[in-house]
């Protein structure tokens, strides 16, 4: 693939200073220089400027990137015209796929998505949405694979809130993938095909608002779909944004909770969509709650591996350490509850701590004042 001006800018913008090292979660896991933003920029420089072919260890380094954007937050060299490592990595992955060089582990994930609409390779019959009664409705709740296949309790919590609000909503039976994971792995065309398929299912519901649990799905609908020609014409909200709306409208009243609650920011909601305030306002809306901030928050958040797709559960042994990095900061902030914004974050953080780790929907649902 011919490299674009934009990606070349990033390659040129990285001038060898390794000031991004401390921010990179994959370097934290692997310790390797090639698993740093600077290392990846150097390797891609050799490919796109030096004419070196992609070889196995370079491809490995490119797929080890979490695409979390931490390097962007910490690099103060943005003014050189765009140090956008995540976009550069995505471009490189598309090129690797186009050249037929994707590693077996990546191909396996791709196949799982194509066959089962999730990266875990779990049959759809085992998903939360397998037994859903789909219907036309103004509000559509999309779960994302993490909730749909691993954390049904998050979906249960949110649908209870929707019921409490008297919302006319639907889910999609056997919810299809958004295609986001395929795009992140470099399979742009297949991602767009999945996007088209999902859009058609969305349109059949006649919904005007989509509420999303999964930050990757949210990012796809907000930023990818419009560019891919599969734009959804209505409104897209993350669960936290919907919750804030119903709290502020009075549709939901919350019972007091005298505890200290912290938020684990989401990479894809935060860095790529600037959703930082809504979840905090939701938490703060619970009477008596003290919202405490972890040392690293907002654009300086620590990664929970939302897009660390090639680090499977086994390999994420050190990913447990990534979760522990977050839970340790929560303890330091004297929090008793960590509110998360993705199933991935819940999975990676909860296993490292005795603190309560709950999705924002679960948190709100636990404090709703019911009519009874």
């Amino acid at each position, binding site marked *: 693939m011919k490299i674009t001006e934009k990606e070349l800018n990033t390659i040129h913008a990285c001038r*060898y200073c*390794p000031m991004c090292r401390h921010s990179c979660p994959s370097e934290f896991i692997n*310790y*390797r220089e090639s698993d740093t933003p600077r290392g990846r920029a150097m390797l891609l420089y050799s490919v796109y400027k030096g004419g070196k072919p992609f070889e196995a*260890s370079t491809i490995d380094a490119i797929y080890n990137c979490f695409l979390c954007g931490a390097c962007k937050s910490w690099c*103060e060299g943005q003014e*050189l015209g765009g140090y956008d490592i995540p976009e550069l990595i995505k471009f490189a992955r598309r090129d690797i796929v186009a050249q037929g060089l994707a590693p077996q582990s990546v191909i396996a994930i791709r196949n799982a998505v194509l066959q089962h609409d999730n990266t875990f390779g779990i049959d759809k019959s085992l998903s939360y949405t397998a037994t859903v009664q789909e219907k036309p409705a103004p509000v559509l709740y999309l779960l994302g694979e993490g909730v749909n296949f691993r954390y049904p309790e998050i979906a249960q919590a949110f649908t209870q809130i929707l019921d409490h609000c008297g919302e006319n909503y639907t889910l999609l039976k056997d919810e299809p993938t958004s295609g986001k994971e395929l795009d992140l792995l470099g399979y742009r065309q297949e991602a767009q095909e999945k996007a088209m398929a999902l859009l058609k299912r969305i349109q059949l519901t006649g919904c005007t608002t989509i509420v999303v649990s999964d930050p990757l799905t949210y990012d796809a609908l907000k930023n990818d779909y419009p560019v891919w020609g599969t734009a959804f014409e209505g409104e897209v909200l993350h669960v936290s944004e919907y919750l804030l709306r119903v709290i502020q409208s009075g549709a939901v009243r919350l019972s007091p909770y005298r505890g200290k609650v912290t938020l684990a920011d989401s990479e894809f909601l935060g860095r790529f969509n600037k959703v930082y305030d809504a979840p905090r306002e939701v938490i703060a809306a619970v009477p008596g709650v003290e919202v405490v901030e972890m040392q690293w928050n907002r654009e300086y958040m620590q990664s929970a591996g939302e897009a660390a797709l090639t680090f499977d559960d086994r390999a994420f042994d050190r990913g447990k350490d990534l979760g522990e990095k977050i839970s340790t900061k929560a303890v330091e902030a004297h929090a008793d509850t960590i509110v998360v914004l993705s199933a991935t974050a819940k999975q990676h953080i909860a296993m490292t701590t005795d603190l309560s780790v709950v999705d924002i929907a679960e948190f709100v649902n636990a404090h709703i004042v019911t009519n009874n």
Partner: protein
Amino acid sequence: MFDMILFELRDIVGKEYVSIREADREVYSVDYFWLPEMCHDRQDRSNITRPMADFIVHPADAEEVSKILRIANNYKIHVTAWGGGSGSQGGALPVFGGIIVDTKRMDKIYNIDEKSMTVEVGTGIIHDILESELKQRGFSTMHDPGSARCATVGGFIAHRGTGVLSTKYGKIEDMIVNMEVVLPTGDIIRTLTVPKTACGPDLNQIFVGAEGTLGIVTKVTLTIHRLPEKRAFRAFVFKDLETGLRVGRRLVAENLQPSVIRLYSEDETKEVIKKVLGIEKNGAYMVYGFDGNNEMVDLQLKYAYAIAMEEGGEDLGPDLGAQWYENRYKFFFPPYMYRLPQLFGTLDTVASYSDIQNVYNAMKDVVEKKYPMARFIGHFSHWFPWGAMLYGRFIIDTPPDDPHEAIHLHNSIWNDGLRAAMAAGGVLNEHHGIGLKLSRLTPELYGNAFQVLRNIKTTLDPNSIMNPGKLGFGL
């Protein structure tokens, strides 16, 4: 034999922690030294190559380092330690191949002793991570270099690093209480529990600044300090560098204990301060700062202000001083930092107050007269009771196309600049180290005294495996 040695290394640290991958060999061949960066940058238009390691190993502790070094001695394989790879002198480059020992797995914080005000850490910890953890508890090492986000504590020890607050808190060598060191033979030693003794030469100081040529430091106990109640700054412009130097000297000599004095030459004031801070003034720009107890800091600021005004300074106020401190890392990032394709270097040196202005003039003179395509700027950032450190920089915007010509020009400027400095009373370097870049000049710097270093090296490293080509030791 490659596979046999590979197997032995894997047997020590585990298969996942030994790399022979192309990607790693490539990225570990470029640190922050201009030369390998230039070679990498020009790969699309030249055939110049870079030496690469054969193996990159990530040991977990001193015992694993020891076993690696025993293998290296057995087979006479060169070993180069790599921490953050952020050194500007080529100290971590595997110039004769062999094994790179990446220290970053040795990154634990073992103990924070609040009574003794010390912290014990693995030397592979990235400094910013250590500082973040200490800050949560209300402490800091007060070692604050621009490389904090990428450099390891071990790297600072290797090259005798310094930081923004050094004028009060010292350089890294002043912060070391004790160390665990793996000698080139593989023996593991610990230096004495405390540093200020009358028990013979200080073993710490044998290894600090040795740049991995005398062994690998694996653990260190550093001093820590409580975060100050107040840290405040003020900025001034003085009519010229000479006046600024006099002010800096007085701030130190009159025992005001500033934590920061940063003085920029007239040229650097025009070029850098304007670009980074947006301040446009003629003269020598200075920021000074104090930290500590509220009342003490206010008193120190008062006396410092009196000195500055007495010397005819133009007061730019506290906010511009604070602005400098808040942006102190910005100077190291592109686009503020000089970067390829430019040819540039930091000719840092240190000299007594009696000599430092002559050193500056001599370096500036030789660079600008002999190399008219270059410009020379400088600032003074680390101050001692006896002298000050000069951060001299040369910059050539359009170096020769041919990489060999560019390297020759680069080395020539370094030679001439530093020989001028030495002739005027300076030394080769103050805190970046010698590395590969200045190795050839080190025997010249020490003269007859170099035999002491050479004999230490020969005794500790009889097979000459550790970091060859650096610090004047050759192969």
